[in-house]
């Protein structure tokens, strides 16, 4: 009984993905056929071939990967370092600084897009890939996770290193970073996915086609007349594949979410 309900619900949830994938392998005449075929009668790669031939797909892929990889590296460094400083620091007003980070958990790009646009423009980052990287490298969710994780790191490790004569830099590099591997792994995976899926920032920063990311290209493609549907569907399928691979590989990390309780070193 329970299993039957769950399976029915799962099938319902997966219909859009299933239908998009099968349709993307249909020829244009078969897509508009009535009644529709569930599986393509003849598998056609027309849509896929055309997005490589006619749109700059490889360029978009390169742009998106460049943005996602570079910003992930910076995000991991910023969050781990901030988390360590705020969790193990001895400076004054530490709680105030932590609170400032927590408050911004509420602030998203959709809300601040106008001033963000102005700042990005003033920094001369409009219509450049760095304009997608630099404003996005700090993420409140990642920072918050790092703070929680670092709080659970036992002080004894740091103390004993100090007794052995290590200075602050050595403690960070030789003790804290190795102990933070699980944190670093999940920050990296989440950050990559966020940047890959991002749409709002590219929408306000990028103007010229050569700098489009995959998501922006997919959105723009739909707005144009005369783009065949099988190309749009093939493009959608391509745009979800990388996150699908990452998701399946690191399923457990995702399901636990970035909740601090789920992360133990």
């Amino acid at each position, binding site marked *: 009984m329970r299993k039957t309900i*769950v399976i029915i619900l*799962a099938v319902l*949830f997966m219909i*859009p993905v299933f239908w998009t994938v099968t349709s993307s392998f249909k020829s244009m005449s078969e897509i508009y056929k009535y009644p529709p075929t569930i599986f393509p009668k003849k598998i056609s790669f027309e849509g896929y071939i055309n997005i490589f031939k006619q749109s700059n797909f490889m360029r978009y892929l390169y742009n998106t990967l460049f943005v996602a990889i570079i910003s992930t590296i910076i995000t991991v460094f910023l969050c781990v370092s901030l988390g360590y400083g705020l969790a193990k620091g001895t400076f004054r007003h530490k709680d105030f600084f932590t609170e400032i980070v927590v408050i*911004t958990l509420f602030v998203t790009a*959709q809300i601040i897009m106008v001033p*963000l646009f102005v*700042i990005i423009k003033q920094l001369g980052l409009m219509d450049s890939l760095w304009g997608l990287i630099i404003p996005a490298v*700090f993420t409140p969710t990642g920072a918050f996770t790092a703070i929680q994780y670092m709080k659970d790191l036992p002080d004894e490790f740091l103390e004993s290193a100090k007794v052995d004569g290590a200075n602050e830099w050595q403690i960070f590099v030789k003790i804290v970073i190795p102990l933070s591997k699980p944190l670093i792994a999940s920050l990296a995976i989440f950050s990559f996915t966020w940047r890959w899926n991002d749409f709002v920032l590219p929408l306000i920063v990028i103007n010229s086609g050569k700098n489009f990311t995959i998501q922006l290209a997919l959105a723009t493609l739909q707005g144009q007349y005369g783009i065949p549907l099988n190309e749009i569907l093939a493009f959608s399928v391509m*745009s979800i594949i990388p996150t699908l691979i990452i998701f399946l590989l690191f399923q457990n990390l995702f399901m636990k979410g970035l909740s601090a309780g789920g992360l133990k070193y």
Partner: protein
Amino acid sequence: MYLKELKIVKNRFIFTIPAFVFHFLFYILPIILMIVLSFFSWDLLSPMKYVGLRNFSQLMKDKWFWNSIIVSFKYTFLAVPIIFVVSLILGVLLQEEDRFSKIMRVFFYWPYMIPMVAAGTMWKWLFSRNFGLVNYIITSMGFKPVDWLDNPTLALFTIVLVQVWVLAGFMMMLFIVGLQAIPEEFYEAASIDGATKFQKFWYITLPLLKNTNISVITLSIANCFRNFTIAYIMTTGGPGYATTVAPLYVYQKAFTDFRLGYASAGSLIVLLISFVIAYTVRKVQEREIEGGKI
């Protein structure tokens, strides 16, 4: 070099500086700038002009701005209860740590990982009037095809459905964590007293989930109230202004009409409203907890 002797190194403040530079530039400064800009008139080309409260007084009279706020409220308050119920049901059904549950969770969580642009594209194809799968099923059962995205009332329901599909699996995980934290003894005691399954759920599970409920509701509200990607992709706000949610209206004012000051004032109001909703939900729930319902 005496870098390691510096006070900010010794008290580890230096580790927070790189992150706080970015935090200030792209989180704190935008909020300050948004407040400042909302008192100016600016089209990016001519110099900024101070206009006092004129943006706000114009917003008050802007019929379509208020319409977009109402659309956002409808969108949010339609989506959040459905998300809550669906994800609670999924959570209850999949709370065990057996193989079956672990595998099935993936199918419900995955929509949350799909880029929202792709999600909107897929659903648009499914709901397409003449060639969509949904209308095919409906017509083959002898009904007339439905204008899922072209009918002003229905279009909002359709994008709400997609929002539910995106968020339900994520919220399901919060419920699973919450459900697993309830001690077995509570249920055992109730069984001895002869409680039915439904009674156990109503009198034990739901009240003990209070904290999870707060998180699910607050997070859902925040996510729905600010989302404009689904509407942007599926309907671009139409037909007419039927699905123009507030963030989408603000986006259009800023980047189609180039009224940056006006748009800033609008976003400020949207930000304040979402703060007020989140705060109210939290207070109401906290009062219920203190009120001895647990």
